[in-house]
């Protein structure tokens, strides 16, 4: 039935049709429902593996679903805690759901809109890359971020971060992180501080009037454990390592629950979609610097607790492993991951004003990934030259 529908409207979008300029969009929708009838070309491989980018990217999205679901509940839970509402489970979920849906709408409408438009302009097929970026963005921004800001950030990330380089596969920086970095540096008042990570809290505080007559029970509990810990140590934040692992703490929607992220990591590693080498080496790098920090007396936080805090786990699993912006060589991946982990914790230890190092660590290493690869590949080139000389 759906096939008939597409067959019927295809002439309109094909060359010569009324809407032929919308060909890329038609193609994107059609290939969403149907794997196309295109056959392999005569000069190449006659059979092809049935995996394609749609499949790989949908797996990445699926891997983030546990973190999203937990995040939705946690939004409601945090809100209920802070305002002393004593909500039940479904109320919390509903609150989180209502909060997160507009963010997703904005992220996908703006992002995909630009992707479609630029594919149309270039006459390309629409690439699926933004499905993942668009899914990540709402998970890493404060839930109360004004919608127009988010729209601008998404537009910036897609246009400047991706399309100017030639689109999916050509970008230097992870687009989702770029959106977050854009927000962070352009609108710092909305992106940092103690109150932004609990839905409704900053508004209530700014208004000076308690929300709906209820008392803000403990405004400070809106602060993430990370910003507390960076100042006073974990126990002062009133949370335990177990809370961090579980994730019922304030923070960006997707990043709080390490256990949900681990489920995602398991999916990514088992399907081979993301590099386990990057995940492993990033953890090693973080542990190493975390250990140096305690050994050198810079911090009292044991190094393993660093892994549970803030955006480290989410960044390591879902963003450092982005195959486009990470190192491309297997050896390079070890170096790249290690440096991300190490840099993230270094920022945390030495910059209490900005306790979340993951975003900048990844963006910085995205920048240097080609350099790492260059040296790894050069070693291969040198080996080849040396071979020529010795023979």
């Amino acid at each position, binding site marked *: 039935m759906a096939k008939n529908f597409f067959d019927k409207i295809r002439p309109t979008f094909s060359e010569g049709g009324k809407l032929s300029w919308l060909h890329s969009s038609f193609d994107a929708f059609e290939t969403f429902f149907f794997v196309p009838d295109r056959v392999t070309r005569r000069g190449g491989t006659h059979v092809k*593996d049935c*995996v394609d980018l749609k499949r790989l990217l949908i797996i990445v999205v699926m891997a983030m679903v546990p973190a999203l679901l937990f995040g939705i509940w946690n939004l409601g839970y945090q809100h209920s805690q802070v305002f002393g509402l004593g909500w039940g489970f479904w109320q919390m979920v509903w609150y989180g759901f209502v909060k997160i849906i507009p963010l997703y709408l904005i992220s996908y409408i703006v992002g995909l809109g630009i992707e479609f438009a630029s594919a149309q302009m270039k006459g390309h097929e629409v*690439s699926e890359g933004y499905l993942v970026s668009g899914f990540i963005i709402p998970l890493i921004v404060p839930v109360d971020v004004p919608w127009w800001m988010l729209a601008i950030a998404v537009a910036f990330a897609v246009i400047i971060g991706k399309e100017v380089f030639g689109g999916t596969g050509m970008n230097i920086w992870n687009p989702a992180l770029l959106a977050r970095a854009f927000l962070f540096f352009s609108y710092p008042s909305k992106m940092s501080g103690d109150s932004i990570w609990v839905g409704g809290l900053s508004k209530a505080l700014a208004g000076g009037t308690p929300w709906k007559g209820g008392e803000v029970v403990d405004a400070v509990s809106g602060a993430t454990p990370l910003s507390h810990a960076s100042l006073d140590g974990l126990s002062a934040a009133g949370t335990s390592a177990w809370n961090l692992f579980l994730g019922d703490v304030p923070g960006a929607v997707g990043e709080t629950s390490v256990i949900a992220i681990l489920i995602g990591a398991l999916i990514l590693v088992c399907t081979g979609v993301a590099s386990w080498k990057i995940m492993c080496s990033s953890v090693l790098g973080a542990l190493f610097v975390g250990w140096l920090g305690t050994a050198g007396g810079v911090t009292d936080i044991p190094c393993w607790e660093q892994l549970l805090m803030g955006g480290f786990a989410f960044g390591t699993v879902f963003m450092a492993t982005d195959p486009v912006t990470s190192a491309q060589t*297997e050896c390079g991946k070890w170096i790249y991951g290690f440096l991300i982990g190490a840099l993230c914790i270094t920022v945390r230890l030495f910059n209490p004003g900005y306790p979340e190092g993951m975003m900048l660590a990844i963006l910085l290493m995205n920048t240097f990934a080609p350099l790492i690869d260059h040296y790894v590949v050069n070693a291969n080139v040198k080996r*080849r030259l040396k071979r020529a000389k010795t023979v």
Partner: protein
Amino acid sequence: MSDQIRLKKGLNLPIAGEALCEVTARVAPDLVAVKPTDFRGLVPRLLVKEGDSVKAGTPLFADKKCTAMVFCSPVSGTVDAVVRGDKRKLLEVRIKADGKNEAVQFDVPKASSLDKKGMTELLLQSGLWPCLKQRPFGTIADPEAEPKAIFISGMNTKPLGAKYEFTLKDDIAAIQAGIDALGRLTKGGVHLSLCAKSFSGSVFSKLSGVVMHQFEGPHPAGNVGVQINHISPINKGEVVWTVDLPLVAVIGRFMLKGVYDTRRTIAVAGPAAVKPAYAEVTAGVSMKQLAGFFAEGNVRVVSGDVLSGEAVGREGFLSFYDDQVSVLKEGDYFEMFGWMNPLRSKKFSVSHAYPAFLCGKKKYAMDTNENGGERPFLMNDVYDKVLPMDIYPLYLFKACLTGDLDKMEQLGIYEVIEEDVALCEYVCPSKIEIQNIVRQGIELMMKEM
């Protein structure tokens, strides 16, 4: 004594329709074709015209650059047609066989009495020289060059490939004679690679005058390019020659009997093959004569294997170097929700994104559907896993794409030809035409050097 080399990377394609070890068709040649396009970079000069009568071993065309290098008719008969393409490019010389099997009789001295020059001349005038390919680039060997060594792969790991142990079991004497002849051409020795698992029982392990190597691993472990990379990699300025084992037998038959005899046993296999088995044919046989093997309907007939063969169609002809024909259904259908289907059990994927990797030895009736749209390079670790060479494939492909000669040279363009990277194209989730990219890279290198 021979060394054993184990390769882990690669993939044996689980494609259905393997040929039974049985010769079910002995094809008496009717219409055959010799195709200059089988030889990379060849500019042919036609030596016959339509209506000329020829014998097996009569030159049909020669290389314009090296006129001594001739390409001969595999059968006796008359020149039926000279097929030309755009810009009068010579595509095929078709011979209608007369069934008499007359052959030009050559006077062949003993191999041991010939030096390199003598052997070269003999092979050139007999039309057998094109059996020798050269690396870098996979062109016909340059008779003037000094090859570092000659490499022969005695294991065929290509998907549905002919089993040499079966197809060449009666040709051991000819292969030995061929090896002796090749031995006169190089100081570096003739290297033969065999499958490590079946080495001791192999009929080829008793051949003499060769340096034996043992390889183990999935395809492309049987590709001579991969083997060279592990035995003695090609460096800048070096040249090695390669010969396919069935063609060694052809050279050997010439050395023994003095005739140009390209008879070979080929595998006709594939998911769309009816009763896949072996057939005895001459080079350039018309696919029409093999039609009994092909299923009805929209079917692609490939001369060679499914990874890097040439689609010649039901009317086409077997290529000079090929010893197999693969038959596939054309995949020109829409598959609803294909990529969303969690199982998709009828299609194979090496990627763990589908559960196919859990299914063990299941074989799949693969077709020619692209299974997706073309996208930019995105995944970076898939190519590495199917290329068992000390090469960074992605970087090499990108160097080829940008036409950067220095980079291509540095990253190992001399060591690969299309068939070595064919699996990279198979696994590519972005559906990029990698063999085409490498082909263009090689052509650019040849033009600029």
